[in-house]
């Protein structure tokens, strides 16, 4: 039963592997970014799961509550989410520029164009 009890971590692992797979296997740059997003989200889940205390509530001081969840992972992950947003924004901006320059966002086509350029 212990294995099932860790279902949060199973979700993390499945999301992480799915994200990495999309990142590696897809040629479309936007899809790559989606893969990266899923991958990063799985890490957020990992941290949040870590911070959860069984039976604890949100860490806001109130009467009659003794047990709180650990707020630190949430704070850390808030930072990581902001970083993730920034990364996505930069990546999308780059993709837009790549599309303007190469007229495609398929990586294999871009590679073909680039290697043709290299030869000339």
């Amino acid at each position: 039963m212990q294995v099932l009890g860790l279902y949060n971590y199973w979700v993390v692992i499945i999301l992480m592997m799915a994200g990495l797979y999309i990142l590696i296997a897809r040629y479309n740059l936007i899809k790559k970014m989606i893969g990266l997003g899923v991958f990063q989200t799985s890490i957020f889940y990992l941290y949040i799961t870590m911070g959860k205390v069984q039976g604890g509530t949100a860490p806001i001081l109130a009467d009659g509550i003794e047990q709180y969840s650990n707020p630190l992972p949430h704070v850390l992950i808030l930072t990581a989410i902001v970083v993730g947003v920034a990364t996505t924004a930069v990546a999308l901006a780059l993709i837009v520029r790549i599309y303007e320059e190469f007229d495609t966002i398929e990586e294999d086509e871009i590679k073909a164009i680039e290697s043709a350029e290299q030869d000339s």
Partner: protein
Amino acid sequence: MIADQLPALQIVIPMLAAPLCVLVKRSNACWAIALVANVLVVINAFALLHQVRTDGVIRYALGGWAAPTGIEYYVDTMNAIMLLLVSFISCVTLVFAYTSVKKTVVTGKHYLFYAAWMLCLTGLLGISITGDAFNVFVFLEISSLATYMLLAFGSDRRALTASFRYLIMGSVGASFILIGIGFLYAATGALNMVDLAQRIPDAESQRAVLVAFSFLTIGLMIKAAVFPLHGWLANAYQHAPIAVTAFLAGTATKVSLYVLLRFFFSIFGPNYSFGAMLLNVVLLPAAIVGFLLLSLVAIFQTDLRRMLAYSSVAQIGYIVAAFCLATQSGLTAGIVHIINHGIIKTALFMSVGCIIYRVGHAHIGSLDNLMKKMPLTVTAFIISGLGLIGVPLTVGFISKFSLIGASLERGWWMVGALVLVSSLFAIVYVGRVVEIMVFRSSRTDTPEPTGMREAPMSMLVPMYVLIGISLWFGISGSTTLSVASEAAAALLGGYQ
């Protein structure tokens, strides 16, 4: 009072310069702001190094929250060296950048270029100074995001794809580091590096620590471009604006190597990293194959920047091999080579920048007889190229000599021998370029390009400053060696 605030100022000054650049927007003014900030940062780093060497470790509590609760900046000799190296190289390349940026970057975007540069510097300095594991990740991402932006300023459209590929690789690497830090936190409940170092011996048997170690190693290897994971580096270095390449070649991978050192030696401790985890079984072969193979690959490149990029990966191989010795002299050799390679590689990329500024490209084959047209640039290339090979009286000699000495001392004479073999490859790839530039006379059928003359002073002066320093360090090697051995002792001694 100001002496207490030096660690904070190290970060605040470049961070302040970035929004000021965005506000001011005028190209020259932005450059001036960035340069003033950078000079201040160099002075600050000097003061820090001096302070650390006289008074010992500095711990600075951000926000007044003492160490385990709050984030602290932790400066020992190792950090101080990195701070000085990063800020100095940034300062010199910034002077160099003025002319080349005017030529290559779109006019309206200069302020963004300098702002990104300052943010990148902030990130790199932050990684070097912080004593908090999660803070390392945050600063790593600040510097990486700024780097992606700087790379994309390249005039070639391939700069965009190079930047995107680096973004994917870099984000995966940073995410791995994030996972590693998460597992460490789960296993020990600490994020502060000193705290972590104290708690890991008790948690060593937990599988979470093992997983954290693996993730951190892989993530940092991507960021530092250690051999099998160096794929992003060549394209990025080739297509970025040349000033950015010079800046990154001297700093970005070096800072990642520093983090690697910090985690392996200070936090996990050499006994765990190299004893229990058998890190040298994994890393040493990678490093050796790296410096042999990529020195060989460098020989067959047609583009000067790409050749130097592969040579960079090979040099990182030397540094990692030196770390794997895990002895006082091995670490000293590694740290000395971080400094020395940072200086010579930046100087080399600067000379390539001068060539590109005048010739317009860096195809090795068509640089014939360049010595006649640009003697100062070519001389600079030759001097720093000799440093790369490791000829006596250059910095390269100091670091290779100490590396070979350290490997003999450890009894791994094969490593020393292979370093010598790869130096032979270095002679070939540097020699080939020098042969073309100096001895091969111009083909008669190509028309003489008009206006071919020496690069402007604003590019030559910073280049020769670096070369002067590299010669000085090469002739009196004791300066760097003594500082580096202090740093190595600090790393091996662990946190007090």
